[in-house]
């Protein structure tokens, strides 16, 4: 089961750079890169921080591939 996310799309929408988002949620830029590529599944805490940064719920950003 693959968990996908809309981080890249939302980041573009909010005009965030990878570095800016990384700083906002307290991780390295490489972690955002890995997240966008789907190589890394974040912890619940990081997912909540990302959701808060985009003013959305976790489910609106992260979803299982067959759900969409």
């Amino acid at each position, binding site marked *: 089961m693959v968990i996908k996310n809309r981080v890249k799309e939302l980041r573009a929408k909010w005009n965030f750079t990878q570095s800016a988002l990384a700083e906002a949620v307290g*991780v*390295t830029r*490489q*972690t955002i890169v*890995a997240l966008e590529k789907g190589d*890394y599944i*974040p912890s619940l805490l*990081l997912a909540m921080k990302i959701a808060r940064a985009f003013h959305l719920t976790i489910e609106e950003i992260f979803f299982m591939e067959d759900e969409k």
Partner: protein
Amino acid sequence: MNNFRYLISFTVLLVLFGWVISAYYSASEQIADFVKNPDRKYMFELNIGPFIALVCIGGILAFFIYRKKKRNNKILSKVFLLPAEFEEVDEREKMITARACRTSYVAMMYAGPIITALFIFYPFVAEKVPYYPIILFLLLPFVQYVAYFLSWRKNY
């Protein structure tokens, strides 16, 4: 990739350390001979070249490694007590470090018995390579370090 620099530094330090211990081993052998045969004019000769090389090169490497590490870490005990390769700035790096440690542990499980078995050849090479045990002992941390490095690189 900072860890590649750490791998090179660690290897250089390991080789220099092995060289220093070999020099001390040679001196120790001479002291043992002197105890058996006190008529000899001198007790032992020690080549301090390796020691100076370790202090100078090791000092420079340690300075650069720990200066960079101090920049990333505020807690001083972490800077001095934890290996420089532990980059755990966020949760993903912590996970990669944990995976690399696991790989390193597995590598030790295999390398330990193999390296121990290589001691069987010591009687055959003792004359030509008296420092054979030192080389073998240092091979274990080297194997572990390479396993750690490869795992880190694969997962980063």
